[in-house]
């Protein structure tokens, strides 16, 4: 029986490695994401806030003082001539712009981009207070110092370090939903399982063989991604590699089984794609792959911790970014494990060859 599982596993690997395109994407996609976002947001915890500054016809000392203060509060200032600024506003690309208005200034915020614009406006106001104080000869205003650290306090890390575990998780989910679930639905649709159905091969061995093969892919993928992260951004695993392995195995088992279970609910590839996307995008957006969920309602923040991706990412980040042990993350791992087991049992029960 172990032999059967082994053969199934080896065969899956062979079939997989012969599909060059699929293999390329499995590895290239997360690396491209990491490099792309990592470079774009190289500076720190995300993009700098920007403000459009409408250039006055004749700059005054007051304008110079404001510009200097805006630079000091880390705003990215984009000076534009009035006509240009108006055109940019018209195209809807401007979140906030500041323009001279009589004795003072006026802030114009784009109603669609209030989160960005509002934060920028706050900084402009702060800069303006500083500029006024200086113009009036008041003593130099004091500011509260800001420090950037990771939650575990290990190391001030960059955005790429936050992103990397997110991508690992995202990829597990996409292998599970698409490379496992989708592939099996299309195999069933094309009748490729019918020949297996007349052999005594137990379904669970077939499923387990696939899970094990996908597990090795996902580990290989993690290795590639971590190497690229290290070479390009100096990100390193802060925790123990054994803990990391444990977390990855839990996550893979969970998402692979999820794909299987889901594949038994769809008759055709099209309907499967619809179901899978319906799950994939909300889970991706709500589970903190790219950004944290701070602005979501509290109930939603609680709800996603019961879904598999969010606890997986929390644990993975704790180990990878902050070098934490697994002791404090028993509940999160238990949630992931419960999803894995539940999904696998459901898959074995429901999976049909034809």
């Amino acid at each position, binding site marked *: 029986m172990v032999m059967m599982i082994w053969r199934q596993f080896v065969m899956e690997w062979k079939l997989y490695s012969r599909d060059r395109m699929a293999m390329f994407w499995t590895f290239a996609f997360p690396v491209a994401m990491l490099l792309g976002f990592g470079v774009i947001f190289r500076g720190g915890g995300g993009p700098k806030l920007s403000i459009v500054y409408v250039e006055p016809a004749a700059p005054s000392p007051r304008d110079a003082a404001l510009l200097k203060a805006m630079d000091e509060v880390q705003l990215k200032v984009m000076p534009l001539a009035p006509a240009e600024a108006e055109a940019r506003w018209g195209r809807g690309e401007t979140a906030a712009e500041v323009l001279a208005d009589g004795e003072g200034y006026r802030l114009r915020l784009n109603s669609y981009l209030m989160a960005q614009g509002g934060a920028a406006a706050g900084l402009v106001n702060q800069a303006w207070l500083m500029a006024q104080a200086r113009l009036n000869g008041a003593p130099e205003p004091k500011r509260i110092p800001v420090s950037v650290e990771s939650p575990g306090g290990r190391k001030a890390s960059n955005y790429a370090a936050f992103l990397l575990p997110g991508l690992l998780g995202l990829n597990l989910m996409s292998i599970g939903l698409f490379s496992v679930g989708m592939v099996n639905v299309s195999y069933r649709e094309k009748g*490729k399982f019918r020949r297996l159905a007349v052999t005594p*091969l137990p379904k669970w061995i077939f499923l387990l063989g696939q899970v094990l093969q996908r597990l090795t892919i996902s580990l290989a993928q993690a290795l590639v991604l971590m190497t690229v992260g290290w070479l390009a951004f100096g990100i390193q695993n802060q925790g123990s590699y054994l803990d990391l392995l444990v977390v990855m195995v839990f996550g893979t088992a969970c998402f692979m089984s999820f794909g299987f279970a889901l594949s038994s609910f769809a008759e055709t590839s099209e309907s499967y794609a619809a179901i899978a996307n319906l799950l994939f995008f909300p889970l991706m957006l709500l589970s903190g792959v790219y950004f944290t969920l701070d602005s979501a309602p509290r109930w939603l923040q609680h709800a996603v911790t019961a879904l598999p991706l969010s606890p997986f990412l929390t644990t993975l980040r704790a180990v990878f970014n902050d070098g934490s042990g697994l002791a404090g993350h028993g509940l999160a791992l238990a949630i992931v494990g419960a999803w894995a087991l539940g999904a696998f049992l459901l898959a074995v029960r429901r999976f049909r060859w034809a």
Partner: protein
Amino acid sequence: MSELALRIHGLRKAFPKVVAVAGVDLEVARGEVFGLLGPNGAGKTTTLEMIEGLTVPDAGEIEILGQSWKRDGQQIRARIGVQLQSTSLFNKITVREALDLYGTYYPKARSTAELLDLVQLNDKAEAYHITLSGGQQQRLALALALVNDPELVFLDEPTTGLDPQARRGLWDVVRRMKAEGRTVLLTTHYMDEAEALCDRLAIMDHGQVIASGTPASLIAQLAIPSVVELTFDGAAPDPAAFSARLGETVEHRSDLWEIPTRDPKGLLPRILEIAEAAGVPYQQIHIRRATLEDVFLHQTGRSLRD
């Protein structure tokens, strides 16, 4: 061990728009080669797939090698070999890998080298399944059906798509299976094949068995041992007038007329005479014995290979 390899009773299967199998009874003895014939859509594949455990019947009993699907599914699967009407494997599996892999699914497996020899795929052993020709895929499917040294083998149109040589090769394989004491249940559209291979036959139409027996008994039952054939160069003309003058039924096929008769000797001079008088532009005239094909056409009222 004279017992039956297969006993089915009252087997039924309805799909949303058609009743594919409408109450089929069959008994196949151990060591027998049994043929299932019938026009397209007669229900042969559906019947086989219910017996193989692929399709759940709506009603009926299946006893297979003394066991039943309900209780002994896994054991039955280990004892039977199946060649589906079309076998779809993973595209990029090689012939050798497929045979090796399927071998591991069974408690006992025949060696891959032996199977490759048997179906003459040695030079394609390392080729991907998707790159095989239709006939080669068919032969691989046959080898897969034999991988577990099965007691009972199901072959659904095993020679469709094979060249004449490969077809004879398959006949040899089937005969060897019989010699080894295996039971074979096959479907075919070739009457010569059925006559050459099968100990007994059942002819199906519209989901029912309409005739069964040995090839010889089926031909004998037809009670018209001979057929006179007039062949034409091109399309055969309408035989109505000729038939009326002759006083015998004349069957109109695309490029020939067939006149079934018990007394070819007595009929032949009259045919020649009337044909001469009416100026029938025939090319040749033959007398032949009735074959299984005549039985089939008579029973189903249709030409087979349409």
